[in-house]
C-alpha cells in the first residue's frame, strides 16, 4: 500500500516488476539503477534469508523530487520468477500500487509467460486486488533477440497471449541494452502516482 505521510508530506509508491524467471526483471532494475543520477536513486537492496534457501527481491527507491511540497518516492521491486517461490512472490506483491509485467519473447517460454500472468492475477486476488483495476504496463523484453536465429514470439503473438484481456500499454524493450526500460518506467510511474493520489483522495491545492 502506498505510504502517504501528510505530516512529512511524503508519498511512497510501490511498483513491482513481475514475470517468469529469467525474463529480465532484475536487469531492468539494474539498468535503471546504473543510469539514474545518484541524487535520484537510493541503494539497490538484495534481501537474502539466512540458513535456508536464498530468497531475494530488489528494492530501488527513486526520488521524483518535491511537487507542491510533497516528496514523491517510487520504490521498484522485483520478485523471484521461479515457480517454487510462490510464497515470496505473493509477499512482495503486498501493498503493490503499480505493476510491470515483463514478458519473455522466447518461444520456449510462451507458456511460462501465460502462467506467470495468471499467477500474478491469482496472487493479487488473495489480497483483494483485481489486476484490471491496478496500473499495469506490459514490457516485451529481449527484443534484441529478434534478429538472431533464436526463435522468438512476435509482438502480435505476445499481444494475443498477454494483452487481449487487459489492453494496456505495451513496450518493446531490451533490458540489457536499456532500450525501452525508461519508457516502461515512465509510463508506469505516471499511472501509479495518479492511481495513488486518486485512491487516497489526496487533494492538493495550489
Amino acid at each position, binding site marked *: 500500500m502506498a505510504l502517504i505521510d501528510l505530516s512529512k508530506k511524503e508519498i511512497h509508491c510501490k511498483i513491482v516488476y513481475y514475470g517468469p524467471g529469467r525474463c529480465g526483471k532484475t536487469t531492468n532494475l539494474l539498468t535503471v539503477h546504473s543510469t*539514474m543520477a545518484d541524487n535520484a536513486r537510493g541503494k539497490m537492496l538484495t534481501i537474502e534469508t539466512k540458513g535456508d534457501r536464498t530468497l531475494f527481491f530488489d528494492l530501488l527507491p527513486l526520488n521524483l523530487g518535491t511537487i507542491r511540497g510533497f516528496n514523491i518516492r517510487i520504490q521498484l521491486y522485483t520478485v523471484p520468477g521461479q515457480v517454487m517461490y510462490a510464497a515470496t512472490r505473493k509477499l512482495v506483491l503486498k501493498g503493490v500500487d503499480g505493476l510491470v509485467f515483463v514478458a519473455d519473447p522466447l518461444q520456449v517460454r510462451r507458456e511460462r509467460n501465460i502462467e506467470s500472468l495468471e499467477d500474478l492475477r491469482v496472487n493479487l486476488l488473495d489480497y483483494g486486488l483485481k489486476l484490471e483495476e491496478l496500473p499495469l504496463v506490459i514490457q516485451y523484453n529481449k527484443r534484441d533477440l529478434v534478429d538472431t536465429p533464436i526463435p522468438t514470439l512476435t509482438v502480435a503473438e505476445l499481444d494475443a497471449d498477454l494483452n487481449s484481456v487487459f489492453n494496456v500499454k505495451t513496450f518493446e524493450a531490451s533490458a540489457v541494452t536499456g532500450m525501452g526500460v525508461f519508457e516502461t518506467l*515512465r509510463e508506469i510511474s505516471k499511472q501509479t502516482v495518479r492511481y495513488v493520489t486518486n485512491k487516497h483522495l489526496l487533494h492538493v491545492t495550489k
Partner: protein
Amino acid sequence: MTDKAPDRDFHDEIDDAIDNLFSPRMGSDLGKPAETPSLQPVAQAAADPAPVTTAPVPGSLLSVDGTDAFAPFDEALLSLDWEISPGNIEKARSALKEIQGFFEVDKAVALTEIFALMDRLLEVMAIAPQSVSTSAPKTLQEGLQTLRVAAGADDLSLVEKTLIDPTLSELRSAIPNIPKDYSKLGQTAQPKTQGVSGIEQKTEAAAVTPVQSVPTEEDVLPELPVVAPSGTSAAVLIETVNGHIAVLGKCIAKRIVPIENLFAKTPGYEKLHAIHTELRERMERQKQNLIKALGVDYQADAPLPLEPAAGQSEKSAVSTAAACPWQNVALASWGGKKVGFLPEQIVYQKKPAERVRKCGSFLPMKKLKRGLFGKISFVVQGELSFRDEATLNMLTIPVANPSGAKEYTPRADSPLLILFKENSGMAFWLDEPTEQFDTSTGCRWEPVADPTTLVAGNLTVNGEIVPVITMRGM
C-alpha cells in the same frame, strides 16, 4: 483512474517531473541494441561479466546440423531458473555432457574442472535445492559463457586469469558443502593446492585423468563394502541391512509420505513439499540400493530391528515388541476378518438407527442425528466433534465394503464405526464391537510401505495377521 478536476494541475506537475526524471535516459544511446561482444578482446569481456550476453558460437562448436551446441544447455538453464525439478536438472546435466563432447580433447581436459563444478552444482541442486542460492542458475550461465569464450579462444592460457579462474571461483562459492569426499568427483574437482598454478594443476589433472566424463549420481552415493563377509558376520550383516531397509520403508510410509501429502495440499508450502519429495526420493533410492546390494538375501518381510526403550534391557525390549508405532489398537471383526483401527481416529462407534443401514455405499452424516432436534456433534467424538454443525450436515462418508460386491447390506445388529482424520473418513459395518488391544503385550509389527492403501501395517497377534486400517493414505 480518472483524474479529478481539482487535481489536474497537480497530476500534470507529476507527469512533468517524471518526464524530466526519465526522458533524458530515453533515446538513441540506450535505444539501440548493443552489438554482440566480440571474442577477440577477451580480457575486456571478462572484466565486465554483466550483463550476460550471447557470444557467437565458434564453428567447432556447431553440431553437424549447424545448430549451436550450447543451445540445449542454455534452454535447460532457462527451464531450471523457472523450476528446479529433477527433470530440468537431468536435462541440464545431459546437455552439459554433450557440450563437453564437442570440445577438442586438449581444451576439454583443460576445462574439465569447470565442467565438473558445473555438474556438481547441478547435482547439489538436485539433492538439496534449499541449500543452493537462487543465483545458482546465473552462475551456471556465467560458466556457460566462459565455455563459449574458451571454445573460440586460440590459447586458453590467455583467458585463464581473466576468465577461467574467476569462473571457477564463482562456481566453487556457489556450491554449498562441497562434498565431504572429493575423490568422488574425480581429481579435477579438487580445489587448487596453494602454490600450484591453475595451468600446472590442469596439466597434472590431464596426466592423471584423460578426458573424464562428468561424475554421475551413483558416483557420489555411498559405496557398499566390496569384500563380502562370511559366516556368522555375513548373516548378522544381512539381518542388519534387512532391518535397515524395513526401517527406511517405515520412515517413508509413516513419516515422509503423510507430511509430503500434507504440504502438497497446503498453499504456500510448495518449497517444503519439494524438499520432502526430494527427501522421499533419496530415501527410496537408498532403499533400492540396499535391496540391490543384498540381492537374493533381501527379505521383504524382514522384522524391524527392535529398539530398547530408555532404561529397559535389551531382553525386555524384545519381549515387548516396541516397534509397533501405537500403544493401543482397537481390534474388531469386519467382513469375517479380524482388523485393527486406531482409537484416536474413531469418531463414531455405535449401533445406529435402522435408516442408517439403508444408506448404501455413502453415509450422509446427518442420518446419525437422534430425533428431530438432535445434533450430529452430540453423537460424534474426536476430530469431528470440533466441526460446526453446518459442516457436519454436509458431510458424506464412503462406506467400506469388505466383500467387494457392489451392494453390501449390513446385519441388523452390526455396529457402525467411522474413522476420520483431517479431511478423510471411512465407515465400516463391523461384525462385533471393537476391543482394545495393548500392543506392548507382545506382537509383531510389519509396516506396509504402499501409501495408497488404508492398511498401515500388519500386526501378528497370537499367530494371526491383523491388518491395521488407518486414514493415513487418503
